[in-house]
């Protein structure tokens, strides 16, 4: 049986290449992803007001579906992950809230599903260089010489108290993954900065300004490629580079999902890479 998987709206529309590459690498690594049936949107924001329970209904419905399928659920989008992980943490510590939501949705969520980011499955179920089935041992085409800048963004890591995936200011999980794939992780000062998020729709100059700083900085530190975990980060860093003004230096840098680099390194066929859906073409980095 596969691992229950919540793709989220963006992975079924705007970021199909993230979904496709993740499913392909998961299968190769023996972590097959099994999509939850008839899932709906997670709501995309975790309710922060203490007296707001309405926004917990959507994530709880997903956790309930996951409960039918197993003990844990995995997801890829940073926003979905953030919402599900924090909702789970809240329902675990607040039994009254759990009862209230269950009463409202007429479901019986027990509050025990573990929400794991796909990166966590790789780290904990497989391991990087050592572990039960180290990722490094699956690598067929090491990304030797590729300087990759891991960009974590915000929602994968923060707030640390409720997420606890990695150090919120000095994270390593993507660095370790890239090293296992044979690439050289590049440190740069903007790796936990926010990309500007949904303001892309309303005030595009905000994410475009932030994107320019982030991508330029990665380039100045020698990166050939920026590696991301979140579809919104990917879009916000890639789209502004459709014109050369996207970076301050004028040199354009491809922005890819970590699963796409994995698909290359694991020697999977090119149709799983999904590099055709990019504004800055990453293909040239992997020409034979």
């Amino acid at each position: 049986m596969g691992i229950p998987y919540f793709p989220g709206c963006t992975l079924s529309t705007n970021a199909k290449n993230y979904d496709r590459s993740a499913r392909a690498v998961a299968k190769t690594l023996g972590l097959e992803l099994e999509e939850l049936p008839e899932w709906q949107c997670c709501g995309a924001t975790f309710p922060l007001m203490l007296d707001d329970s309405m926004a917990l209904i959507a994530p709880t419905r997903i956790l309930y579906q996951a409960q039918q399928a197993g003990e844990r659920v995995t997801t890829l989008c940073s926003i979905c992950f953030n919402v599900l992980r924090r909702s789970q943490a809240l329902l675990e510590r607040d039994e009254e809230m759990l009862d209230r939501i269950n009463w409202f949705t007429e479901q019986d969520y027990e509050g025990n599903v573990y929400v794991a980011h796909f990166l966590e499955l790789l780290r904990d179920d497989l391991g990087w260089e050592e572990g039960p089935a180290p990722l490094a041992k699956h690598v067929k085409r090491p990304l030797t010489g590729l300087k990759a800048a891991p960009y974590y963004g915000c929602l994968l890591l923060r707030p640390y108290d409720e997420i606890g995936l990695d150090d919120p200011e000095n994270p390593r999980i993507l660095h370790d993954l890239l090293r296992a794939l044979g690439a050289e992780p590049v440190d740069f000062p903007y790796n936990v900065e926010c990309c500007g998020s949904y303001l892309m729709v309303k005030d595009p100059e905000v994410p475009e300004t932030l994107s320019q700083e982030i991508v330029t900085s990665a380039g100045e530190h020698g990166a050939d490629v920026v590696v991301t975990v979140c579809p919104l980060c990917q879009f916000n860093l890639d789209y502004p580079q459709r014109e050369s003004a996207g970076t301050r230096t004028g040199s354009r840098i491809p922005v890819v999902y970590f699963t796409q680099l994995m698909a290359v390194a694991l020697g999977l066929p090119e149709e799983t890479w999904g590099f055709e859906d990019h504004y800055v073409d990453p293909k040239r980095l992997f020409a034979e």
Partner: protein
Amino acid sequence: MALGNKALAVRTDLSFGDIIRERSGEDVHSCYYCQKCTAGCPTAFVMDYKPAQLLRMIQLGQRERVLSSTTIWMCIGCEACGTRCPNQIRLAPVMDVLRQMALDEDYAPETAVYSLHRSFLDSIRMWGRMHEVTMLAQFKTLELLKEYPVFFKGLLGDMKLGADLLLNGKLSFIPDRIKGVDEIRALYEEAAATSSREKESEVSG
């Protein structure tokens, strides 16, 4: 003299900070203005008051100024401030409370952000999942009803974004509609009814 009159015009409500502390769970009174939040805030450059300034205004009870600021609508909840605050104040929950208060009390909100949130939720009510094309269409229509010049300027930009995305195969015209969508609509309706019942009982009780 003119300045003196202006200063007097700022009405204060000293219970304001306490209400926010209670609804957000964040101790806004413990801010000593080190400004780390402002220094690390990615959107501070488009805010009329910077995050630390807003906190000080909350402490001083400047309710109207706070609730009508653009700051509360430009915060995107990245949690950088809360991660770095020496007094463990997280501004994201504070901003959420302020946005809700601004809506409840009819302060002219940063309307476009609010329309965007509304369009997003309506898309889920309609399809069960978020669908970019119909969501953006509704968002732009809401904007049209509010402000013509801004709308046309924005529309041109979005048409370009939309056309780019469609050409790139990133958007589809046809939404996914999940089987359980009736259940989701029923939950929405029930939630709306429950929250208005709660509001009434708060008022009467």
